[in-house]
């Protein structure tokens, strides 16, 4: 399943870091962070609890870039 989230991130490299962090989160099959459109597209693994996974994604992203926001 794919879902798109609006994000707020200031620099292109931070967007790359967020993408890496998201990809490594459990329950995420793949992720794309588009800096230009300020969107994050997350593909979840089958049967993953989307809400719980996104909570972890946010946590992981805050770790690499404390300034970022994800609108859940």
């Amino acid at each position, binding site marked *: 399943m794919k879902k798109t989230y609006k994000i707020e991130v200031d620099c292109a*490299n931070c967007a*790359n870091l967020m993408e890496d962090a998201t990809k490594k989160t459990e329950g995420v099959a793949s992720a794309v*962070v588009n*800096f*230009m*459109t300020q969107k994050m*597209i997350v593909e979840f693994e089958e049967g993953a609890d989307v809400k719980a996974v996104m909570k972890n994604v946010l946590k992981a992203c805050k*770790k690499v870039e404390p300034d970022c926001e994800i609108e859940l």
Partner: protein
Amino acid sequence: MTRKQRKNLTRIIISAVLMVVLHFIPVTGLFRFALYLVPYLIIGYDIILKALKGIKNRQVFDENFLMTVATVGAIAIALIDEGDYVEAIAVMLFYQVGELFQSYAVGKSRKNISALMDIRPDYANIEVDGNLEQVDPDEVEIGTVIVVQPGEKVPIDGIVTEGVSSLNTGALTGESLPREVKEGDEVLSGCINMTGVIKIRTTKDFGESTVSKILDLVENASSRKSKSEDFISKFAKIYTPIVCYSALALAVLPPVINLILQNTANWGDWIYRALTFLIISCPCALVVSVPLTFFAGIGGASKQGVLIKGSNYMETLSKSKIVVFDKTGTLTRGVFEVNGVHHNELEDKELIEIAALAESASSHPISKSLQSAYGKEIDRSRVSDIQEISGNGVLAKVDGKEVAIGNGKLMDRLGIEYHDCHSVGTIVHIAINGAYAGHIVISDVVKETSKEAIAAMKKSGISKTVMLTGDAEKVASQVAKELGIDEYKAELLPADKVSRVEELLSEKSEKAKLVFVGDGINDAPVLSRADIGIAMGAMGSDAAIEAADVVLMDDDPKKIAKAIKISRKCLGIVYQNIAFALIVKLVCLVLGAFGITNMWAAIFADVGVTVIAVLNAIRALRA
């Protein structure tokens, strides 16, 4: 400016003013330290917090850490020597100014790009009892008639059923000339209706419509990273720790050696030099500008109707040396047109009229091209007794005359003598009342811009152009000669195209990249086999969009040269920035280590370089 940017600007102003005011207040000792701490914390608290968080999260070495260590160190030296606190505050201040500038510039260019790609229609108009009603385009079923008023976006692909208008297709194709549409014409979603009200019968769901597909492509433009980006992120990972340890060595070793040699240690001096070293070495200019250049490049390209799926493709495209084309639909229009009428007794027009009438019942592409050459409404009542002879042609009565129209075999069969043609293309012979009346040559037409496109590619450094086609040898050689293509292979099956591309791939050197350009029909395997696959005008073909690395929104071959040019410019900027930043930093680092530069120069070396690199990166937007 966003709220965050305004807040940062306020912080910068307040702390700058405080710094100036404090300069005139005659206090000393700890009280002075406490006073100067105020502007320092105002301007730097978030950096310090981020550095602490980084340490907590075991991501120690980043620019926040460098800045914090350098400024805290400078303040400590000032506290001990009763020296100048201004430097430490200024370092933070300028760092923040640099950040603010960069975030403003980036935000602005980002908005430019997303505004261009803002083609998502919000609603569709449906007529209900004579009134227009706005509905969600997702809910419109195929076959519904929707109304598009001037100034509105066409929300869903369809066919015009009523009205005349001109459409701005700029968002789809980058083409600035408006396209005229009338009843019966196909319109793509994402175009903007400019002049008249049109009614459209939808032929697709919203999700399958052009506009949705383009948005999907742009938003998913996966950040597959290019080698240069990988290089930078790996570089930053190794570089920052190395710099930190070098700075530590610079702070500790010389004084210790001095002590051993029984000279004065000069701790303060060397620590100051080490801190300067730290500030100069901050890799922001690279870390920020390289990904930004790729983003701007991809954005600028999509503005031109060239969708590049990732920065790695941008990089490969810039190294392309060999371009392989599919012929039909790529270099030629893929539409058959009447190209000549020979050996005819009647007027050209008359012969075409008779041919079009006789073929009027057939749905063969040949019959369609005859009808479009005739250009008028077919009056079916003039035709009777139509008899189609499969693989040969048609016999019919037109205006009472017996007409036979078809290939050489048909003429042989009827025992009519005919002239064969030396021209390239499909030859349609016509006999009227048993006597030969001439033949019509129908062939595919080369696109107007093809020749120019090939020349532009040659000029931009493409060393070899190759055309692959399933068409006959005679046709291929003529097209290749006309367009100035170096090499061609004719009469290929789709599978042969793959093996031919593989041959070309193995012949070339590793550095020269091979581009394959196709119109997306039957090309998917070759598109994915080449180093870079470009699909053109491919909005109709999902397989091609999937397989291609670069998608051209219209089918103008000139866009291929454009795409290559954009990618070269983008990569050029990347290399400029890398070289510029590294050289300036290296020079400053050496000077700093010898104590020639001070912290002021260091902060300019860092922020100045970043600002210039960001400005340079944004150039990639204007393709």
